């Protein structure tokens, strides 16, 4: 019987089984940012413990970064204190930091793959739940809390419960206008926001095989929204082609040797899974969330469920009340006030290209505030080389600096009052985008662009077809 990638990576990184039934795993790559680490370094200092492998930890800054005025010190003194703490801690412990003055700075889950730090067969940890993103390259990546950040700094290892593996096979071809974002929203809708608890999700099938790394990153990113702490795609030629030549990828002959190892850690054809789910790609349409968790979504041609929906236990009614939406109404035509293209889910070059393709030569509706926030300085520069910034500006979008921005609104970009936001981010939780009464509709970047133009939720397929 063959093994899954998860089992192979797990076995390779096992330090020792613990008497508790957990396994102590070596962490190959640790990524840090300003929000979840200052307390971890303070705990280390208080205990007189050093950083075990400073060359296996890399820092950047993303969550609190203003996307307009980045002059230091920041006007927001709390944000300034956080970045200063990160600078101090990285300097004290010899940890590389890509700060605002570096062309490598960006959202931690964008720059890891971009720099080739993220590689197949690695174990990765970061104090952020969207660390699952890195699984797109065949890594096993865990989101962790601050005390665990401390533990990785101290010991380069963590204790984990065993994980089951659910293979999710998406077979067939996606319709024009249907994207990786729609696939993961469909998966979460079907399996639920806690369907993945205790599991790693292995994504495969012909639709995933055909996807670019950017698209796979989008899918793995939202594994945690389905309750799965870990999500991954087996490494293949697409993965190797993506990594070749990146700064931290192996170079020259070492790259070819790495490829043969990377191939070997993919799940075996006869691997045994704890569960298998099949999804037909042709059944997926562009999806939009209507509620307050990422499972609450419908296809753009569908209607919002009614408050008495079966098995909803009052959750639908609560969501509809918060969202100010009526059950039974079509989701299409829902008015939006803000449009946000960005976040670790959908802020890569291909995401911006898809949104720009829709926006090109059009105008954002007069009542909509629309912003595009690239995921990294590298994405920003590449987009500007292609003239995407001008396409967006001409259409009435604001073009901003790189960071997490309005995904969680720890910087000045936030919703006001009960604004409704078409967003390419990952969470539609109450208050997520910075206003306690602000409302989020999750969708693909192309769908966000379409909503920005129409001033309401629109079907991006209509625009694509009209132009063909």
């Amino acid at each position, binding site marked *: 019987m063959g093994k899954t990638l998860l089992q192979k990576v797990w076995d*390779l*990184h096992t330090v020792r089984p613990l008497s508790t039934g*957990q396994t*102590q795993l070596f962490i190959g790559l640790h990524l840090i940012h300003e929000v979840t680490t200052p307390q971890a370094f303070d705990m280390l200092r208080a205990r007189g413990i050093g950083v*075990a492998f400073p060359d296996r930890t890399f820092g950047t800054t993303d969550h609190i970064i203003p996307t307009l005025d980045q002059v230091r010190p920041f006007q927001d003194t709390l944000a300034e204190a956080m970045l200063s703490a990160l600078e101090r801690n990285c300097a004290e412990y010899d940890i590389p930091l890509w700060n605002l003055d570096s062309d490598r700075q960006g959202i931690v889950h964008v720059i890891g793959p971009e720099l080739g730090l993220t590689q197949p067969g690695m174990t990765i940890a970061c104090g952020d739940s969207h660390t699952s993103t890195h699984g797109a390259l065949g890594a096993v990546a865990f989101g962790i809390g601050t005390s665990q950040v401390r533990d990785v700094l101290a010991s380069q290892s963590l204790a984990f419960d065993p994980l089951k593996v659910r293979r999710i096979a998406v077979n067939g071809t996606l319709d024009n206008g249907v994207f990786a974002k729609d696939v993961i929203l469909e998966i979460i809708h079907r399996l639920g926001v*806690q369907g993945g608890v205790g599991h790693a999700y292995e994504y495969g099938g012909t639709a995933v095989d055909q996807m670019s790394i950017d698209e796979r990153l989008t899918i793995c990113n939202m594994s*945690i929204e389905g309750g799965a702490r870990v999500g991954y795609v087996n490494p293949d030629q697409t993965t190797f082609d993506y990594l070749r030549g990146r700064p931290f990828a192996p170079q020259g002959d070492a790259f070819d040797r*790495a490829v043969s190892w990377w191939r070997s850690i993919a799940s075996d054809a006869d691997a045994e899974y704890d569960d298998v789910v099949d999804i037909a790609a042709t059944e997926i349409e562009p999806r939009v969330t209507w509620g307050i968790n990422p499972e609450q979504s419908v296809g753009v041609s569908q209607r919002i469920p009614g408050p008495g929906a079966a098995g909803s236990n009052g959750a639908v009614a609560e969501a509809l009340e918060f969202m100010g939406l009526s059950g039974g109404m079509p989701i299409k035509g829902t008015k939006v006030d803000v449009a946000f293209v960005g976040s670790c889910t959908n802020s890569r070059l291909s995401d911006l290209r898809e949104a720009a393709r829709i926006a090109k030569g059009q105008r954002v509706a007069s009542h909509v505030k629309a912003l595009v926030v690239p995921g990294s300085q590298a994405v920003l520069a590449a987009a500007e080389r292609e003239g995407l910034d001008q396409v967006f500006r001409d259409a009435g979008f604001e073009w901003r600096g790189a960071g997490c921005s309005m995904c969680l*609104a720890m910087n000045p970009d936030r919703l006001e009052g009960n604004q409704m936001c078409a967003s390419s981010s990952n*969470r539609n939780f109450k208050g997520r985008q910075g206003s306690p009464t602000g409302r989020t509709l999750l969708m693909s970047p192309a769908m966000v662009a379409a909503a920005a133009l129409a001033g309401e939720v629109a079907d991006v397929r209509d625009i694509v077809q009209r132009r063909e």
Partner: protein
Amino acid sequence: MSNRAVDRIEGSALPLRGDNIDTDRIIPARFLKAITFDGLGDHVFEDDRAAMPHHPFSNPAYQQARIILANDNFGSGSSREHAPQALKRWGIDACLGESFSEIFRGNALAIGLPCATASPDDIARLMDLVENTPATPLALSLSERSVTVDGQPVGIDVEDHVRDAFLTGTWDATGLLLDDFDVVRGVASRVPYIRGF
């Protein structure tokens, strides 16, 4: 590294109804903008409390509560340890729910806040009870895997390793992970991407 052992948590309980209560609701992101966890207890469920005047965390009857009663998938979403930190700093010493998200449960363990589960029926019964009589004393015992109300024990679930960690005061993992550091170095020297391809 040895910490305070935890077995029995006795006190009143606070009913927090609803499935999938996420960590953004427990502690909104704007309160993460700090370099310590100090003061987080003041902002527990701040936005939910503003929206719901009768929120249990605002209700004077529950201000002494030490145990949270929760429904399904409590603590989903963000990995922010600030969520269990805020609950603990408010005065919560144990969470009893139908289920918890994985990262929240791990973060809670790391700071010495046990999360135990009970059946949906038992949770519903306990919630009704403390809604009717907020001062009802509960005694949650990790060693006995039970919560006792009015002399009647109700079974609760806690994973073996979590229970042992609390009972022996070893819930802070740093010491355990550093126990055999040569082995960690050994793994580092064998993984191909560190050893070199």
